[in-house]
């Protein structure tokens, strides 16, 4: 592309951005807000008012609907890959095959390096947890809408920005670590795991805090229409993409590390 063309394209893009900004500022005042920013923030943390009906059986937090949606999407894509892609795998991989192998290989290596003695189950668990956290966190970027029990539209948040989801994953990770301790060392393994009794709480609240902070910043940015230009790109990357990567790595790495530690067989000391 020539310099002139590049300058023209840049000028057009800036004009479009400016026009949109002006339009936003002009029309911003007429927007009717159903909730104050305080209520929005409070609801994002506590989920007191905005509930979604789960098939008419029970009213649940929107994050649970997000979780089921993420699971549905992920399993559908996985089934498609299993049926159409995996049977055509080659010994010299293509780009997509390489991506899949890298994904599986990354979590498998994480399990192997951190827990050399027992890692088969751990590899499968950290793979599932990693995929769930990563895709679940990116899910909020798509802004899928749900209808609350009060008839309002709400953007489905990341599943793990709900305290219940974070607690479930944190406690499950702790139980997996405990199972590794029992399988590797029996009662001594249980003792080793129970020593770190704060682990489920720290893992749960780390996840919850990290993802909630992203959600709150995003809510804040989108609440004021004037902040809805350009800034969401930065916020989206900072609080969603990086969180997705960091939290995936942190939880899976911690789980693998503790699992390896408690499942490591101890040699009996000679008297």
């Amino acid at each position: 592309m020539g310099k002139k063309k590049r300058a023209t394209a840049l000028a057009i893009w800036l004009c479009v951005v400016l026009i949109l900004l002006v339009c936003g500022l002009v029309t911003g005042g007429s927007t009717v807000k159903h909730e104050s920013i305080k209520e929005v923030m409070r609801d994002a943390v506590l989920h007191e008012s905005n509930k979604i009906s789960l098939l008419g059986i029970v009213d649940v937090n929107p994050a649970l609907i997000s979780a089921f949606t993420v699971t549905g999407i992920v399993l559908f894509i996985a089934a498609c890959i299993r049926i159409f892609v995996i049977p055509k795998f080659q010994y010299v991989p293509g780009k997509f095959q390489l991506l899949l192998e890298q994904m599986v290989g990354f979590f498998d290596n994480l399990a192997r390096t951190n827990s050399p003695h027992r890692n088969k189950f751990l590899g499968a668990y950290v793979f599932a947890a990693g995929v769930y956290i990563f895709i679940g966190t990116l899910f909020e970027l798509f802004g899928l809408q749900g209808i609350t029990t009060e008839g309002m539209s709400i953007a489905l948040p990341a599943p793990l920005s709900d305290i219940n989801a974070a607690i479930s994953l944190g406690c499950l990770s702790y139980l997996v670590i405990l199972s590794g301790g029992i399988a590797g060392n029996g009662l001594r393994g249980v003792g080793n795991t129970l020593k770190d009794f704060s682990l489920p709480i720290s893992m749960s609240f780390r996840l919850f805090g990290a993802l909630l902070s992203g959600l709150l910043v995003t809510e804040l940015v989108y609440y004021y229409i004037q902040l809805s230009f350009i800034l969401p790109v930065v916020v989206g990357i900072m609080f969603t993409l990086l969180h997705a990567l960091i939290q995936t790595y942190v939880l899976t790495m911690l789980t693998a590390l503790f699992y390896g530690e408690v499942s490591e067989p101890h040699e009996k000391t000679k008297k």
Partner: protein
Amino acid sequence: MNIPLNIDWQQILLHLFNFAILAGGLYFLLYKPVKNFMDQRLAYYAGMEKEATDKIEQAKAKEQEYQKLLEGADKEISQKKEQASKDAKKMAETIVEDANKQRDHILAEAHKAAEHEKEKMIQDAKEEIVGLAMAATVKMLHGEAVSHE
């Protein structure tokens, strides 16, 4: 009892249920097949590497074997050379000995034949002298008879 932060046990269980489905599905649909394929490829290349290593070892073993054979052949050649030289020497000695024997034999035969010839010639000469003497005697007797008549 109202739990702080609106923690709801039912929803925690529902999240666990959701994650269990996801984990199981991902294990059977993605993790296991991809890992199996990777293990299979690893085994394939490990097999190839082992095969190559085995072939190299076999080649080395054969090289050593041939080296040993060559060393043995050299020894054998020098031994055979030595043996051949010994045999040739022996054979030459035998031939010379035979030739000497033959020469002695021929000489002895020649001496014998010459002696025999000599004796024969002397005998012939004697017989001829006797014949001549007889003839001379007869002639003389005949001449005397003629003269008497």
